[in-house]
């Protein structure tokens, strides 16, 4: 372990200003959606206050993936036509694009690859949720999919200098890449991601997805199914080469996640074989 690297990362975590920021509207909308006493009108007003994000949200509402056919020209209409859960997902897409859509040096991801990966994992997570009768949480799985790797945006700088050591340790000890990250740097990208979500005041369920997406069996029992969904979606996207970086496939495919969701071998192969269609759908959001 490199104590000085651990200290520098600890310093970043302690000083929230150094962690990435997103527009306030995202956390406000996530909180409001969960409160049954909040009227849709209040949510629409909150979003509309941020002019820049409203423009992007309307564009996304009319994109191939989200559109229901009719042109949407206001947030009010969007909520009526697409539903509040869908609009919430769109707000998160619009709010996180800037921080995720960039070069991630240490993991060797070119500009746009982490963003494409997040969107593909989001689309596939939603699909798995619907397939395995978890439709009620499909929207949360989608949100979690977008942001599951957000910790990489901060940790990449340190991985750049320690990559060889991390990979060597993973190989020699037969541990997955994120475990080796923690051994070498004191933190892994899941933990950093959780800290970022704490700064953003995101709900516990999303923090769990980010924190445990490589080790779903450690997630709190109530979140095990949703963390498992994003874990499987992440695995399939990496196997298909979508957003695969220097860490490659040095990860574990969790048996606990497969069992939790009751996925059969046939279903796993069909989901994987369907990746081209998932990518087509995802490209409508990029």
């Amino acid at each position: 372990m490199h104590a000085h690297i651990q200290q520098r990362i600890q310093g970043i975590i302690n000083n929230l200003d150094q962690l990435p920021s997103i527009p306030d509207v995202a956390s406000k909308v996530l909180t409001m959606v969960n409160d049954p006493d909040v009227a849709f009108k209040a949510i629409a007003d909150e979003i509309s206050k941020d002019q820049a994000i409203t423009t992007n949200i309307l564009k996304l509402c009319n994109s191939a993936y989200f559109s229901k056919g009719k042109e949407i020209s206001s947030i009010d209409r969007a909520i009526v036509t697409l539903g509040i859960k869908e609009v919430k997902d769109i707000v998160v897409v619009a709010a996180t694009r800037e921080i995720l859509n960039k070069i991630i040096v240490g993991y060797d991801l070119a500009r746009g690859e982490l963003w494409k990966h997040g969107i593909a994992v989001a689309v596939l997570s939603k699909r798995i949720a619907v397939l395995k009768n978890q439709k009620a949480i499909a929207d949360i799985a989608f949100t979690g999919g977008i942001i599951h790797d957000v910790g990489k945006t901060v940790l990449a700088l340190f991985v750049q200098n320690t990559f060889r050591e991390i990979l060597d340790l993973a190989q020699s000890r037969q541990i997955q890449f994120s475990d080796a990250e923690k051994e070498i740097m004191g933190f892994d990208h899941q933990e950093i991601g959780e800290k970022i979500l704490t700064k953003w005041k995101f709900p516990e369920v999303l923090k769990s997805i980010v924190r445990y997406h490589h080790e779903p069996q450690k997630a709190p029992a109530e979140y095990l199914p949703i963390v498992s969904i994003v874990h499987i979606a992440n695995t399939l996207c990496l196997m298909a080469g979508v957003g695969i970086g220097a860490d490659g496939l040095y990860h574990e495919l969790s048996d606990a996640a497969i069992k939790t969701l009751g996925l059969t071998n046939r279903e796993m192969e069909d989901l994987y074989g369907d990746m081209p269609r998932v990518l087509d759908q995802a490209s409508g959001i990029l």
Partner: protein
Amino acid sequence: MGASSSPGILRTILGSCVGICVYDRMKKVGGMAHILLPNNPGDGNPEKYADSAIPLLISRLMKDGAKKEFLSAKLAGGASMFKFNASVTLGQIGERNIEESKKILEKNGIPVLEQDTGGSTGRVIDFFLEDGRMKVKAGGQEKLFYKV
């Protein structure tokens, strides 16, 4: 799938998928197939399965003037997750992709001259159509394969 004559570079990113680079050394035309799974269930996108994509690639190259006796292949990809339960069949998909690709190439009389396959590494491959060389970038390191 891409097929064209020189100059040009075909690029793809691979996990468990396999990239099959086929080149005619005399006509200097080549093409790449990027397959996800070994066997087409029948109604799948023909470009995504080894057993349908490779014959398709060969026929496109022949249309571009390639001759079968001058064709050779290079393979990359077919990685596996670092850890998985042995009963999960998708875990072996990388190896099955490599195996099926080789089988279909052999059936078509196309020799596999070089390969960079297996392991748990992700690969970015560039296939240069001017001379048929393949560059593989994996885990921050680059390797070149020249045989055609």
